[in-house]
């Protein structure tokens, strides 16, 4: 059972690294816009069939 003295701190460290990763992501702006990427997924990447270039 004394293994728990290794496991518990390990689990905490793991969790801690997750928090640090989260805080890093927040500060890099990953969560600034949560709407657009969700919507962008619904769009397709193919170029428009009939698009005519505005050549002016």
């Amino acid at each position: 059972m004394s293994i728990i003295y290794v496991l518990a701190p390990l689990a905490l460290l793991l969790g801690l690294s997750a928090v640090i990763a989260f805080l890093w992501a927040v500060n890099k702006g990953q969560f600034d816009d949560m709407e657009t990427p969700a919507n962008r997924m619904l769009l397709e990447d193919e170029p428009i069939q009939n698009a005519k270039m505005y050549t002016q």
Partner: protein
Amino acid sequence: MEDLKHTHTSKTALQCSHCGEKVVTEFKNHDDEEHVFCCTGCRAVFNILASKGLEEYYDMKEKGPIFKARGPIKENKENFRYMDSSEFEEEFVQYNSETGTKTVRFYLEGIHCLACLWLLEKLPEFKKGITQSRLEMSDSVLSVTMEKNVFISDVAKEIADLGYPPHPLASKGDLESFEIKENRKDLSRIGVAAFCSMNIMLYAVSIYGGAEGALAHQFAWVTVVLSLPVLFYSAIPFYKSAWSTLKKGTPSIDQPVVLAILVGSLSGVIDIWNGKVDTYFDSLSVLVFLLLFSRYILKKAQKKGLDSSLAGSFFGNGLAHRFNSDTGQFEDIYSRFLKVGDNIKVMPGEIFPADGDITKGQTSADLSLLSGESTPINMFPGTPVFNGTVNLGNPVEVRVSYVGQDSRLGQILEKIQQDRSEKSPLLSTVDRLAHQFIVAIFIISAFVLGINWYLYDGAIAITRTLSLVIVTCPCALALATPLALSRSLNLAAKAGIIIKTFDVLERVARSKSILFDKTGTITYGTLSIDGWKDLHQGELSSKDIIYSLEKFSNHPIGKSLTQQLGDEGVNELPVSDFIERSGLGVSGTINGISYQIKKIEGKTGSYPTNTIGLYGDEKLLTIVSLKDTPRHNAKRLIQKLKDLGKAAFILSGDSKQNVARIGSAVGIETEKQFSEFSPEDKHELISQMPDVMMVGDGANDAMALQKANVGVAVSGSVEVSLRAADVYLTTPGLEPLTNLVELSNQTLKLIKRNLVISVVYNLLGATLAALGYITPLSAAILMPISSFTVLFTTLYGTKWLRHFVRQSEVTL
């Protein structure tokens, strides 16, 4: 009487092929019977999309969700030339030397659905020179990357032509960075609280499960340590708020929360120090997490509808003509670059880009943005002019005195921003209740402490008081109310109703009467040509003459005439000596004859108010009568509002006749019709009616809207309207109004229901705690349970709310 080509449909539900609004006056393309539009703006965008092969846009609209309802498109008239100046490039453009491109960021108006995203991100495919285009929907910011030699004004014009007026954002990240920083801080706090509370839970569960001995004790210490980040970082906003309200002497919802946190933590640490194994830290951290979370959601909901429309006004009006002493010419620049002391020229129809004084020329201006009055004011050299007001008559030169945030407009907008961020997330009825509740808790706790100490001993007293404090924590108030409010605000935004602050919902529910402005609110507001009588037939067609003269007018009647005649097909004649005098109509010379168009003189009463005459050389040639038609669903909706418990009144500056005509058409009794009211009269009337809702035009009725308990603006520019009004309806018509009233009623019902549950629970819990039946530990468990219960009942909503949610997802 001549018959015009417009079809006024009142029964068929024709929808605009572009924006989906109901079509009243049909606009079509020649030889195209399939598509119909509600206005020239929508038709223009449709044609642009068609000419570029982008019809897929309409398929996209079907596919995805819509975030905000949005009305018809205003046709773009700007050419954005100032974006090509070097000054502009320096501040707004970012260059990338590696790829040989430059990037500009724009804030866009009118973003509202998936199709918008699709269209704008496809820019590179139909506009030469653009390499990348990315849209951030939550902020409505578009980042466009293009080749170095592309004209930015070209790009901006393209975007505007598609129906999304762009405002450039400084490349060094300006307006939004404060909001973004706040957002990130909030998220960080929530993230830390979430992590800590869940890990604490892990260890606490083992203790609940019956662990004992040294291990359990160590786990208890771990929970203490893990709760430190929550106590000293995540919970900071609560400490700040509780402290500031304490200093002011007002009770606030955060105070008992902070009390529970502090007392719970302190006694928890003491207990664990003394060898006990029970831990309360899991409940405390979960509480902090839930509270932070619900407040965050409320903030986002308020932001969604509001900011994206107000933000446009922070950018001011783009164009300014500044005098360059080197070249001796007026050059086009972006109004942001104006400085005090600059000499600028403002053309008729343009908006004054800054505060200043007139140096040359005289004109009349529309000061409705600031004064609420749209009657033009005459201006002469020396008269001050203000940022945001419209120059109506003639070109003038102005010396700039205040720019941007220092201008009157800037200060007003700043104040609005400030006011909004200071409110606590409770409605006033709930607030009052909360105050009583909080004070009661403090008193009862002190009482319980005292009695138990006297009757038993210190330890028991403290334990029971602790249980009491934890159990009676006002979760329903602090948690569920913001959640209910934010959901309603979101629903409203989806339905096109922009609500300034959440307390508006309560005020709407509480109001007893609704005052309707007539023109533009109950009626369509466009004076349509009702009758045309040519008394004399000259060589020139009277239609051509009137069209040619009114083309230069900035008056609403003139603009309306121009549009209606123009759609019919008239010939434009050359006009000289055009003069427009406010209140006196327009005049000009065509082919040597001097013509005048003005309101008919002569026996008043023989002509209804909206009749104008064309005079040639002082002789009356033609009589045109204009009519204002009530909206086709006005009668039904007003009845619905009456059924919802509101009395309906008309309040108008128009003549008794006209008001009576409209009033009887929509079902408002004569006693409830107020006609010929000046803005001051309206203001006076409203101050005598306490719980009243005023519905009107944002610009003209600004004073009345502000005075009323709830002001609802149905048209006019957003910035003007929201300065005075509490609610802004983006889609025309009265339908959103009925939705607003029902939404408010139902939201209040929901919140009251939560309160009842909460009070019952608290009474029960408090009694049991005081008598010693609940240990602090079980109190700590009960608290999150009660929080979740209230949370779920809130999300479950009421029957009407569920129906409304489903409806808004289907029909929009």
